[in-house]
């Protein structure tokens, strides 16, 4: 019997993994070979997807990228032994998966199981340290669980990087019969796919994290507010939740502990602003996703007016390992006040895109060149947007900035969700600045004037600048408008749109038809 792995992650599927898997089974049948096919998640080396792995006595051997046409040859090579010289001579042979440099140099804590296990096998999850965190949590008081999260130094992966433990503590101390845990799985930032990977490739980790959160603060109901653009994640999450319920990891009296936690997935509907926590709550209540004024904080008056934890996927998915290995274990990774690891997503114009989890502190340059291998087009990398559509564009001179919340703040940039989008020198930064306003205009909830009106006026001003109309005045107008949006918007959508706009203007003035001197004026 040969055990073979072919990923079922969306990105692998987008490159033909389904056809490869089918062909593998057809080939096995035709040859009368006993093959067990496991559909794992993606290891995150996207340029090698579909990445097929074959289990051997020494570990899993990787081949990739494997297209259907390669399958027959692959069977010839591994027919006797995936460790044989014939196998090693195969053009797609990559060696032991765990020894691949890309993986070996990473510090995978949250993504430790991703790509390794069958995502919807509870047995597989348990065999790989799954539910150890929950087991520990069941022996602790709510306050002790919250203390562990606080001590770990975990911070929200959205724009604000707010300490997760402090948020939980507020909910813990808010007296209420009913509390909620809400997972924000509607982060629609370009360059961001770590959430999707968690949900498709290791869904029990998120379920376990949310269950621990519920037990910690006394919330009996949880919701995952999931992007409608992720149909595969929806299927996987629902199947995993069903299994967790059957096995007693969700529902009434979890594992006989007396704790109750119910979990449900709710589909979002393609509104970017619903990634903002108060809009998200409005949407979950069945309303238009209009941003709410704060205070009151959602931790005090959240979903249906009750105390609510709202955390991102990665924050909640990180909880199990903190409760399993301890707060100190997690906090020992990282630099400064940025503790633990960050799942970084390499995207855009790079040779080697994919998921890299590292302790905070690595530099953009290391990621773009050592991991990313430089641009896909072979042209110089000119600009990099970090942290999604509301993140600043960074020029080459800032590539040595370490990935750390405070270091990014110093250069007027944000780390956000750790999405990194690279552009080569064909990019027109004035066009990207215009796009930022256009995106804000399309996605604005309309509640506050700076965002609603400012974004549309921003598009107009950018058009005038591109046409060279009344240049100095329009650039000044652009700055004034950005200032109003920055300081006057109700939430990050309007409040951060000036990041991509002004960073593009400041770092790439030539694209706006300005000399460096004019831009500085």
């Amino acid at each position, binding site marked *: 019997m040969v055990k073979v792995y072919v990923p079922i992650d969306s990105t692998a599927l987008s490159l033909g993994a389904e056809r490869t898997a089918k062909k593998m089974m057809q080939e096995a049948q035709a040859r009368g070979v006993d093959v067990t096919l496991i559909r794992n998640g993606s290891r995150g080396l996207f340029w090698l997807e579909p990445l097929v792995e074959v289990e051997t006595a020494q570990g899993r051997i990787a081949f990739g990228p494997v297209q259907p046409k390669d399958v027959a040859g692959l069977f010839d090579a591994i027919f006797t032994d995936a460790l044989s010289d014939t196998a090693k001579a195969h053009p797609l042979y990559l060696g032991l998966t765990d020894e691949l440099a890309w993986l070996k140099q990473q510090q995978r804590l949250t993504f430790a199981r991703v790509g390794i296990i069958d995502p919807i096998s509870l047995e597989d999850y348990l065999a790989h340290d799954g539910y150890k965190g929950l087991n520990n949590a069941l022996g602790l008081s709510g306050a002790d669980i919250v203390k562990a999260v606080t001590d770990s130094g975990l911070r929200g992966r959205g724009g604000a990087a707010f300490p997760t433990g402090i948020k939980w503590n507020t909910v813990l101390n808010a007296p209420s019969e009913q509390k909620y845990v809400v997972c924000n799985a509607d982060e629609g930032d370009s*360059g961001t796919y770590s959430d999707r990977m968690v949900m498709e490739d290791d869904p029990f980790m998120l379920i376990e994290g949310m269950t621990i959160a519920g037990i910690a603060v006394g919330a009996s109901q949880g919701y995952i507010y999931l992007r409608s653009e992720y149909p595969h994640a929806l299927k996987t999450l629902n199947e995993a939740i069903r299994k967790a319920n059957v096995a007693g990891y969700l529902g009434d009296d979890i594992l006989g502990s007396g704790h109750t936690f119910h979990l449900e997935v*709710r589909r979002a509907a393609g509104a970017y602003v619903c990634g903002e926590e108060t809009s998200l709550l409005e949407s979950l209540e069945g309303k238009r996703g209009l941003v709410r004024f704060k205070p009151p904080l959602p931790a005090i008056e959240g979903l249906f007016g009750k105390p609510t934890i709202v955390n991102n996927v990665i924050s909640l998915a990180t909880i199990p390992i903190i409760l399993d290995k301890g707060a100190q274990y997690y906090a020992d990774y990282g630099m400064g006040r940025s503790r633990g690891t960050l799942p970084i997503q390499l995207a855009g114009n790079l040779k080697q895109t994919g998921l890299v989890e590292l302790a905070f502190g690595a530099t953009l340059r290391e990621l773009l060149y050592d991991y990313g291998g430089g641009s*896909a087009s072979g042209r110089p990398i000119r600009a990099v*947007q970090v942290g999604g559509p509301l993140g600043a564009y960074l020029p080459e001179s800032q590539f040595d900035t370490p990935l750390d919340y405070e270091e990014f703040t110093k250069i007027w940039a944000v780390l956000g969700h750790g999405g990194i989008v690279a552009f080569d020198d064909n990019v027109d930064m004035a066009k990207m600045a215009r796009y930022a306003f256009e995106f804000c205009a*399309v996605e604005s909830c309309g509640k506050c004037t700076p965002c609603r009106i400012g974004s549309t006026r921003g598009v107009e001003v950018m058009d005038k600048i591109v046409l060279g109309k009344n240049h100095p005045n329009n650039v000044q107008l652009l700055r004034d408008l950005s200032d109003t949006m920055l300081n006057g918007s109700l939430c990050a959508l309007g409040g951060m749109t000036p990041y991509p706009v002004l960073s593009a203007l400041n770092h790439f003035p030539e694209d706006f038809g300005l000399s460096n001197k004019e831009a500085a004026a």
Partner: protein
Amino acid sequence: MDNTLSHEQHAQIQAHIQAHQHVPGGLMPLLHAIQDDIGYVPEAVYPEIAKALALSVAEVHGVVSFYHHFRTHPIGKHVLQVCRAESCQAMGSEKLEAALKATLGVDYHQTTTDGNVTLLPVYCLGNCGCSPAVMLDDEVYGRMSAEKVTDLIAEVCHG
């Protein structure tokens, strides 16, 4: 009830309304359920939804119109969503968009004359590692070119 809806569709909508009327925040899942079955949310059923969920018709209209995902009119047999977000732009999605519009003979939010394909923009499919990306119905496709998408459409639409 809208007489463009069949009896079967009418019955499906009624069943969904009944199933969701007591669910906390049930309007969004209800709208999804209707659109999943019928392909859109018919404006003619707003009053019934409103009554069952104790809302005004204006509130139902407000929610349907707020979200990009919901639509109020029938669409093509297949939906092609083209990602317009930054990562895809960095890999040439603008050219892809232009070529697709020309090939299909439609702009965004329009359906081809044979009724096969509705073209929609989307802002991130979470496939940024393999840009540019498109989604045809529920499947994502990465590293797309205009040629590849055209082949894909032909394959899906004409078997």
